[in-house]
C-alpha cells in the first residue's frame, strides 16, 4: 500500500518524532491504510505503526482534521459505526444506502451513487442479499456502550 501513499508509514513516524502531529493528522495516507498490519509486523524497531495509524485516524476524526481528499473513507467508517450503534449487528443494505447518501450529499456524484447498483440482483440471485438484516436483541446495551466510549458520530 505504501506506494500509493502521500506520506508512507516510515515518514509518518518521523513526522511524529519531530513533533509535527498536525501534518501527520492531515495526511491522506492514514485513510488509505488498509490496516493489513504488515508495517507493524516487519518494523525492525518494533514500532507498532498500525496502532499509530489508528490513533491518528481517531484524532483526525474527532478534531475534524481528516484529509478532504479521503472523505469517502471517513464517511464509510462513520456510517458503519452508526449502523452498529443502531442495530447491534451490521445491516449491509442500510449501510450501503447511508454511505452512498452521505457521499452524494457531499459531492453530488451520480456515477458513484449508482456504481454498485448492478450487484444487487446478482447477489439476490445467489441468496446473499438480506433485505431486512439482523438485529441484536439487546440494542439498549449497544447504545450505552457507544455512549460510554464517547462515540458521538462527530464530523
Amino acid at each position, binding site marked *: *500500500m505504501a506506494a*500509493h501513499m502521500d506520506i508512507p508509514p516510515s515518514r509518518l513516524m518521523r513526522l511524529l518524532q519531530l513533533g509535527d502531529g498536525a501534518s501527520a493528522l492531515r495526511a491522506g495516507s492514514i485513510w*488509505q491504510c*488498509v*490496516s*493489513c*498490519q*504488515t508495517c*507493524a*509486523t516487519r518494523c525492525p524497531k518494533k514500532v*507498532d505503526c*498500525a496502532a499509530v495509524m*489508528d*490513533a491518528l*485516524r*481517531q484524532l483526525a*476524526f474527532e478534531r475534524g482534521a481528516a484529509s478532504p481528499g479521503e472523505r*469517502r*473513507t471517513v*464517511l*464509510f*467508517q*462513520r456510517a*458503519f*459505526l452508526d449502523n*452498529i450503534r443502531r442495530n*447491534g*449487528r*451490521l445491516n*449491509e443494505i442500510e449501510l*450501503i444506502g447511508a*454511505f452512498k447518501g452521505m457521499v452524494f450529499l457531499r459531492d453530488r456524484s451520480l456515477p458513484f451513487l449508482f*456504481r*454498485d447498483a448492478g*450487484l444487487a440482483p*446478482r*447477489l439476490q440471485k*445467489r*441468496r*446473499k*442479499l*438480506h433485505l431486512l*438484516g*439482523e438485529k*441484536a*436483541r*439487546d440494542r439498549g*446495551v*449497544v447504545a*450505552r*456502550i*457507544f455512549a*460510554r*466510549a*464517547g*462515540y458521538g458520530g462527530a464530523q
Partner: protein
Amino acid sequence: MNLGYYPGCALHGSSNDYEQSLRACLGALDVTLAEIDDWICCGATSAHSLNHKLAIALPARNLALAHRQGHAEMLAPCPMCSMQLLRAAQAMASDHGLRAEISEMVEAEVNSGPRVLNLIQVFQHVGLDKLKAAVRTPLKDLKPACYYGCLLVRPPTVVDFDDAEQPTSMEAIVAALGAKPVEWSYKTECCGAGMTMSKTETVLELSGRILANAAAHGANCLVVACPMCHVNLDMKQGAIEEFLGTKFGLPIYYLSDIVGMALGLSAGDLGTDRHFVLGGQN
C-alpha cells in the same frame, strides 16, 4: 467436539455461503457449533479506526457472553472478528484496571476466556489423520494457491498463529485431502479488505495482483479462510478482470469448501454453487 460459535456480521450477511459451508463441513466431522446468544458486531476496521475504546468494548461484550454461556473455546471464522477478539482479550489480560472498566462498560463480567479459534485451528483440532481417513473424494486435480491474507497471521503478537511471512497450515490440510498446493509469493499480501465500497480501485489493484500471481504459479483455484478475501477475489473477480484487461476464471473456495468436497459433500450442501466464479468441481 463442541465449540462456541461467533459468526460475525459477514457470515450472517452476504457471506452466508461461508456459514453454510463450514456448518455442513464441520457437521460431517462431528464438530457441533453453539452460536453465542445475542452476539454483537466486533466493530471491525471502523471501530479500531475511529474509537479505540469501542474496539475493545465491542469484542469484550462477546467474550463475556461466550464465557457466561459456558464456552471454553469459540470459533470465529472471520479473521477480522477473531483478531479483534484476541486483541481485546490480550489488552485486558495485562491490565486489570482496563478489564474492570470494560466490564462495567459492557454490563457483563469479562473473564480470561474463552479461547478464540480460527477455522484452520478447528481443522487442526480435528486432526490431519482423522481428515485423511474421512476423505471420500481425493482432490487430485486441485492445485490450490492457499491464501491467508492479513489477519489470520498478523499481527503475530496478537494472533500468534503459524508463520507471519511463510504460513503453511492450510497447505498441510489441503495436501492431506489429496490436493497439490502450489508454491507462490502472495500468500499474505492484502486483498484490500474493507475498502471494497469506499476505495474500490485499491481492491481491484491489490486483489488483481494476488490472482495474477496465483495463476502464474499454476494454481487452478484459491483457498481462503476469510469472508472479506472471498468477496474481493470472487465477487469482484469480474471487475478485476475488466480493470486489468485479462481473464482469470479462478474459483475461490473457503477452506471448509475444500474439506467438504473431499468428504463427498455436494456444491448444494456447501453453497459453492452460490459463488460468482464457478469451478469444475461443482
